[in-house]
């Protein structure tokens, strides 16, 4: 025990003497939250559209005006032929084009139906999808309006079944509520995996590990002494991040903080074990960064932090069975947004626990004092 205390004293001295550590611990959470949450947003604003109106009727004119009145769509260009309209799309001048064919209004009045075309730049598939959905809604709305006007009645065809959506746990569909827990997971992972791994590899680089290995210090003492400081820092940073999340983004925190920190504790054991494991087969800090970065990016992208796991292909969903980040982010969102208890989270808790045990066991087994 005393040996571990001496190790901890030394680690904390080194950590706080390192000029880069304090910024990492305090500035990184703030930066990640502010930059990522505000910049990496899927919310759609300012879609520029063009119109190619061959009909030039009251109906088409009214529709274009209605669209321009929406906060999401700006009318940028009106063209007289399709080539010119396409040109605008190719030059990125507009994101989408509405094409009204000749006799649009006539067809609508005479046949009760008319066709139009929408051309969307889908280089960014997500934006294209959302634009289409918004447009669809506006068109449907307009449709109803026309029906009402023509038949002088409010009972339109489309009004028999009315859909009223209620979004549970995130009623305003606030993007930040989805994003912030994800950022917190990334934060905890970076602290747990990189800081601990780098610290260990640094001892290898400096050669001090040899000196440690020749002392009667026990393997478990050394490992506990090395991992404990980063466990503290990880939990501290999570708390710090949660405070920022509450103050700046007013993220709902329905569940118990104790439950949250129990889950975070187990998750940190997993990533600390991962950091230790990577440090056993890398010799320099650069190697560790490359290996760690490679692993982390895959795990982050697959985990559902930024994109829903449910829309991934089956093999990717299967992969997530071995992705600890998947379990932690799911649990974190459930606790924060739904107020899930430890009993609700059993599956996630035990999964993470198994990861922690396996990871630390592997790392300890790979870490040898003798070669």
């Amino acid at each position, binding site marked *: 025990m005393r040996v571990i205390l001496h190790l901890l*004293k030394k680690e904390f001295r080194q950590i706080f003497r390192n000029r880069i550590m304090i910024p990492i611990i305090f500035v990184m959470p703030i930066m990640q939250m502010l930059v990522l949450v505000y910049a990496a947003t899927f919310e759609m604003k300012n879609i520029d559209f063009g119109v190619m109106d061959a009909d030039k009727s009251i109906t088409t004119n009214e529709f274009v005006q209605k669209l321009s009145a929406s906060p999401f769509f700006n009318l940028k260009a009106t063209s007289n032929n399709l080539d010119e309209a396409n040109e605008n799309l190719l030059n990125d001048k507009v994101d989408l084009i509405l094409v009204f064919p000749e006799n649009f209004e006539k067809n609508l009045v005479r046949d009760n139906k008319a066709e139009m075309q929408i051309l969307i730049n889908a280089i960014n598939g997500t934006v294209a999808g959302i634009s289409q959905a918004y447009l669809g809604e506006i068109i449907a709305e307009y449709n109803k309006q026309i029906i009402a006007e023509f038949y002088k009645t409010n009972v339109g065809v489309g009004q028999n079944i009315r859909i009223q959506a209620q979004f549970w746990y995130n009623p305003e569909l606030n993007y930040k509520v989805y994003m912030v827990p994800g950022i917190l997971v990334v934060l905890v992972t970076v602290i747990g995996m990189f800081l601990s791994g780098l610290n260990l590899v640094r001892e290898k680089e400096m050669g*001090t590990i*040899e000196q440690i*290995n020749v002392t009667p210090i026990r393997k478990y003492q050394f490992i506990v002494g090395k991992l404990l400081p980063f466990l503290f820092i990880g939990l501290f940073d999570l708390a710090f991040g949660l405070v920022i999340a509450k103050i700046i983004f007013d993220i709902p925190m329905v569940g118990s903080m104790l439950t949250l920190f129990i889950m975070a504790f187990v998750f940190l054991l997993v990533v600390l074990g991962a950091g230790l494991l990577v440090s056993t087969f890398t010799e320099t800090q650069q190697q560790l960064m490359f290996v760690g970065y490679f692993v982390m990016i895959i795990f982050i992208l697959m985990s559902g932090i930024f994109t829903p796991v449910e829309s991934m292909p089956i093999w990717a969903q299967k992969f997530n069975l071995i992705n600890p980040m998947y379990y932690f982010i799911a649990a974190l969102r459930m606790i924060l947004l739904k107020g899930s208890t430890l009993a609700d989270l059993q599956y996630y808790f035990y999964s993470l626990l198994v990861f922690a045990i396996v990871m630390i066991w592997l790392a300890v087994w790979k870490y040898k004092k*003798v070669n």
Partner: protein
Amino acid sequence: MTAENIIEVENLTKIYGQFYANDHLNFSVKKGEIFGFLGANGAGKTTAIRILCGLSKPSGGKITVAGFNVYNQTEQIKRNIGYMSQKFSLYDDLTVKENIEFYGGIYGLNNKTLRQKTSDLLQKLDLTDKQNFLIKDIPLGWKQRLAFSIAIIHDPQIVFLDEPTGGVDPITRRHFWDLIYEAAFSGITIFVTTHYMDEAEYCDRVSIMVDGKIIALDSPDNLKNTYQVDTMNEVFLKLARQKIN
């Protein structure tokens, strides 16, 4: 095996693939002596010293250090030895005093002993007024003397020094050897590798290693007589050259 031998090595062999880093080494070190383990760079000195310290497993041979064998009693060995390597072993970002306390602490010294040892050591090395300097800010010669003193802070029976004086001038080396003599006088066995032949003169006995084999082992004076030369440097050159021919 005689009682006074503290290190016994029979047929120590370490093979990396096809390469014999240590080829059937045989020697013993007496309690309290200064044993020089000489050889050119790459002769296999560091490999052997790492095996004796329990940092590396031999491919074969019967080896005991302080009465414990190097295969499965490495933890007992580590309690009884000190080690200072050519690659620098103090923490650059800790102060002189913090380094002493840390290593003393992980060797299990209690607080009282540790305080006493720390102040004695600082005084002996004339570092009392520099105890709060970071290691990276003090000269190499001082670092080496401090590293040696820390390697014996737990009063081991043997201390292994792997090229402890690399990169410093002869006067600084001489200062370092004063510390070695002092430790030897207090009963600690010194096992030192070096490729400075002037340092070989300071040893009680030396072995000379070429290409993984020990080709000579005796006191410096006997070696000089045998090869009819005046300095250890000439002994070494003669042996190394003979090996090439």
